[in-house]
């Protein structure tokens, strides 16, 4: 179980203090699929990074399986079963896809078959990719899918995916949502997925709308989806017109 207690995060810009997250508290039970959504710049990635230990909160506590991990580093949290797929994954000169999956799995003898399975789940053909370097020669969508495959290979108790759909083609996206559904159905992990996609939101046990550094709404997908749609459409006259015209 993951518990966030009164998490706040602020940065100093000149003399001003800029509040990025404001007193966020929430609890996520084991094996749940929770989607964080909300406007750009709302604070979703920052919140995910705080859970992983990539960002240190200014205030508050993070409790993982009853243990206060607020003071633990990234490596220790990773070893306690938390993983995070980056919104913008870094690239590595000289590390191959296979190297990355092997590192992620923690099994130095990870078989080719296993690698293939992970890659297939994100719609990549292993033969074309296993020996390729995770460097600038890969496209944005390819890097993104390899990043997701590395989280699947990691097979942690808590998997956080930061906009897994970004830059991914429709076919791979379909494959990916199936994978999330499967993990969820097996109850093999707790998932936090940051997403703007209706399809992914509809898979969630709970949707949390983060805006302006705070939790704006939370509820089931069926409660939240109509609200989000109404908010977005209401906020943009052009879009409303287009939709009504259809």
């Amino acid at each position, binding site marked *: 179980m993951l518990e966030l207690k009164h998490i706040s995060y602020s940065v100093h810009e000149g003399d001003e203090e800029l509040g990025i997250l404001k007193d966020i508290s929430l609890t996520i039970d084991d094996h749940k699929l929770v989607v964080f959504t909300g406007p750009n710049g709302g604070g979703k990635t920052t919140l995910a990074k705080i859970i992983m230990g*990539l960002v240190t909160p200014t205030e508050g506590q993070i409790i993982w399986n009853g243990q206060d991990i607020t003071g633990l580093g*990234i*490596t220790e949290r*990773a070893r306690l079963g938390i993983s995070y797929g980056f919104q913008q994954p*870094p690239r590595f*000169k000289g*590390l191959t896809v296979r190297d990355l999956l092997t590192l992620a799995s923690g099994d130095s003898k990870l078989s080719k078959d296993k690698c293939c399975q992970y890659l297939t789940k994100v719609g990549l053909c292993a033969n074309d990719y296993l020996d390729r370097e995770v460097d600038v020669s890969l496209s944005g969508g390819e890097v993104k899918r390899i990043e997701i495959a590395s989280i699947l290979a990691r097979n942690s108790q808590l998997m956080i995916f930061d906009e897994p759909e970004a830059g991914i083609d429709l076919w791979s996206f379909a494959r990916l949502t199936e994978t999330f559904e499967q993990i969820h159905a097996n109850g093999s992990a707790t998932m936090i997925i940051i997403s703007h996609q209706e399809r992914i939101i509809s898979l969630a046990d709970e949707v949390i709308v983060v805006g302006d550094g705070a939790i704006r709404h939370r509820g089931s997908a069926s409660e939240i989806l109509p609200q989000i749609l109404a908010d977005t459409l209401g906020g943009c006259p052009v879009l409303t017109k287009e939709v009504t015209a259809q």
Partner: protein
Amino acid sequence: MMDNEIDRELLEKIADMLGKPVGAFNIRKDSGCDGRQSTEHIEITSKTDGKSGIDIRIKDGTVGETCHIPVIITKPGIEEMVYNDFYIGENCNVDIVAGCGIHNCGDQTSRHDGLHTFYVGKNSHVHYTEKHYGEGDGKGGKIMNPQTVVYLEEGASIQMDTTQIRGIDSTKRYTKIVCGKGAEAVITERLLTHGDQVAESDMEIVLDGEDSKGRVISRSVAQDESSQVFYPRMVGNAQCFGHVQCDSIIMGQAKIKSIPAITANCTEAQLVHEAAIGKIAGDQLLKLETLGLTEEEAEDCILKGFLA
């Protein structure tokens, strides 16, 4: 030959040699010859002009053979200048494995200077591997100054892979390759310096012949207070294609200077250079930490991949 542990280890490190190599070889140890074998197609002879070194003659049409010519220095205070000349016939495809290992436990400097000259005949391909390695905790310096000069005839090619990972206090390397018509030179260079080591690499690829190609891929890591200087130069004198790519990771108090130069003396010459120096990207370290590696493990992993 290879009668002790130190010799065996050095030979394995620099030439991947375990026991007696297959094919032609010449082992130079402490300025003497510690073993030699010629084959039907590859003949190795001592120089007769009074200079120290060997001549290697490879017959036309020699395919799939390997020639090992490692040099090891196990005694402190040895300083040598060696000349090795390779005469490679036409239509060959051979592997040449050179390399130098220094084990210095004393206080005097050990130093190996070598000039390797390759004459590569028409349509022949040479894969040349050179590894440099130093060990031993004496105060004596371990110095290597290799020079490699290659002449590629029409349609000939060389793939030259050089590696120096730790252990050599001072190195000044010079490489020159002259490409004839349709010839191709590919150089990969891997260098890691640490402590107060210094390394300098001066390279000149001359694309003389029509449709010749040159490619340099240099990757280096400078740690601690070490310093590195690179001068990769590519000259295009005909319709040709040349690409120089230098990437360095800088750490600690190290210094790296990269001065690539491309010169076109023909409107059909197409030359590109890229050079980048930077520290390990923070998000690379963080990503590997999220996979459960410690910061040190992440750094090792990134450097190992980069220099692989």
